[in-house]
């Protein structure tokens, strides 16, 4: 079975860590054996940690010359059989985009940590933002899917990194830990488990590596040096990797399968948490660091007698629109606070039916306060 329980290779128990260090430990715990990266604030601590820890544990570390080189090396390493990752922030994410599409199209398991800062462009390099929600999903050309998980605590910087590896390996997709500067640099207590559930890639010798009979199937994942004579290409290909750049049916079925293999598994992939939702009339939909402020605001509102709840999205991509539709049935309104100009707001709106949606946006390089959320909730009554 590809899913196994292993002893946590990093120090278990109660510890005090920064979010970026916890993500790096999560990667090591998940079995990461290759890191390729380029320094950028506010993600560099992940790279520095990996440069110290990976080689002594039998892995390889490369400081590359830029971010597209970083992700390209990660894809190469993944095909060499290593669980592989990189970490970056906005400008680096933009540079990676062509190769992100390559990873998606060649079904290469890779993990990317994006510690979001205030963009666009160089923006406020040391300040927080959450403006890359759409960029991780739509930044490369053409249609493809990724997985993106949004941690709200240092604990989740660890656990969701492990989960990102498990999903990347299981689905053969690029998986993001879509963190924010505030969580990357936050220091708080974490409880690291003694054992972990780890997914290792499925490999069945001599099976086609790029296709299978099911329209949403995930093929076997071989590696270099295994005698498979692999043909890996970013051109449209058949199930053995031979270029098929003419027949319309090849392209159609490949592009659809690559989407379907993720979308048809939403029920297994998508996770969320609900707080006070049972009788909530107004529901705050929040994710990442903003969900901390949202929970505080919701608790305060409850004390003041308001029927308010919180829906915390853990999985951002694939987006769980069915969940929003379900919650919308019992709600009188949604509030979506975000450190961008409404990127998840649009997704909520398109799934909310007749339930009104209010967007609370803040792009000033600081986190949204519970008071702002509280004020917005009161306005909605």
């Amino acid at each position, binding site marked *: 079975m590809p899913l196994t329980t292993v002893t946590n290779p990093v120090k278990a128990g109660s510890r005090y860590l920064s979010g970026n260090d916890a993500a790096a430990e999560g990667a090591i715990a998940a079995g990461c*054996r*290759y890191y*390729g990266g380029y320094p950028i604030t506010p993600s560099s601590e992940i790279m520095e940690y990996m440069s110290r820890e990976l080689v002594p544990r039998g892995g*390889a570390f*490369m400081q*590359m*010359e*830029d971010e*597209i*080189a*970083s992700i*390209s*090396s*990660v*894809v*190469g*390493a*993944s*095909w*060499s*059989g*290593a669980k*592989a990752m990189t970490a970056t922030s906005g400008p680096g994410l933009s540079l990676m985009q*062509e*190769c992100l599409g*390559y990873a998606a199209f060649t079904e290469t398991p890779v993990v990317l940590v994006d510690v979001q800062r205030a963009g666009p462009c160089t923006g406020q390099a040391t300040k927080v933002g959450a403006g890359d929600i759409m960029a991780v999903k739509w930044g490369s050309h053409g249609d493809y899917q990724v997985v993106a998980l949004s941690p709200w605590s240092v604990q989740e910087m660890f656990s969701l990194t492990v989960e990102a590896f498990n999903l990347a390996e299981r689905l053969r997709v690029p998986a993001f830990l879509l963190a924010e500067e505030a969580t990357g640099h936050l220091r708080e207590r974490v409880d690291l488990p003694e054992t972990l559930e780890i997914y290792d890639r499925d490999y069945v010798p001599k099976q086609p590596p790029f296709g299978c009979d099911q329209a949403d199937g995930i093929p076997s994942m071989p*590696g*270099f*040096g295994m*005698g*498979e*004579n*692999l*043909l*890996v*290409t*970013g*051109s449209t290909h058949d199930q053995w*990797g*031979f*270029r098929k750049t003419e027949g319309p049916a090849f392209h159609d079925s490949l592009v659809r399968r690559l989407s379907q293999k993720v979308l048809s598994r939403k029920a297994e992939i998508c996770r969320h948490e609900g707080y006070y939702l049972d009788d909530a009339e107004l529901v705050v939909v929040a994710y990442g660091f903003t969900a901390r402020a949202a929970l505080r605001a919701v608790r305060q509102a409850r004390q003041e007698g308001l029927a308010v709840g919180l829906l915390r999205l853990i999985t951002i991509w694939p987006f769980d629109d069915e969940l929003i539709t379900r919650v919308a049935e019992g709600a009188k309104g949604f509030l979506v606070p975000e450190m961008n100009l409404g990127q998840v707001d649009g997704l909520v709106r398109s799934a909310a039916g007749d339930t009104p949606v209010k967007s609370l946006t803040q792009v000033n390089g600081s986190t949204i306060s519970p008071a702002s959320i509280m004020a917005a909730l009161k306005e909605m009554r």
Partner: protein
Amino acid sequence: MARSMEKYLRPEVQTTPFCPGCGHGVLMGSLLRAIDQLGLDMKNTLFVSGIGCAAWIPSPNFAADTLHTLHGRAVAFATGAKAANPELKVIVISGDGDLASIGGNHLIHAARRNLELTVICANNMIYGMTGGQMAPTTPQGHLTATSVTGNPYRPFDLVKLVKGAGAPYVARGAVTRPYELIGYLKKAIASPEFAFVDVLSPCPTQYGRRNKLDSAGAMYERLRGLCQSEAQGACAPEGAEDTLQLGEFND
């Protein structure tokens, strides 16, 4: 290609994708001969290429692991593949536009790091695949689809560039001298360090046509004239614009 080399080709592959007279086919045959003479274990060899006509030399032709990547990024992919599995022999083969323009930064950094990679540049001094636009290797004054009155800029001397970046083994061969070329390729592949071979390989379709070399034969004649063989130990002399030194350039 000689029948004896067919064992290195995938049975599904019937013809090479190259135009008649293209030098890339000669380079492909020379590379296979070098591999054959070295007795390289193809099961443990990875070929990495970028995008362009030259990038088709290994993919899908070679019966080995092949990684056909993005335009310019072959060396970066190869770096990760090698670092993650040091047992692999990793050979990058791609075009001059791919390796020296869009991928130029990856090339010099790989030479600087000196990881064990063999990089072979199929240098036709033009962007063949996209229709004959100017490359960073196009000689000054020569005609391309984006320099119809002549390239105003100086070309890169890839031997000097990669040597300057620290590569321990650098050679320049030409498909007009296949026996020397096979020798350089063998040394580069056998090297336990970063090794680079610049291979002059004519593109009659896009380059010859524009530069009054109407046939593949005329292109090969010109290439023969350009090449000066065996520059033992030194790069091409300054100012020798229309002469390309072949040989090994090592201290």
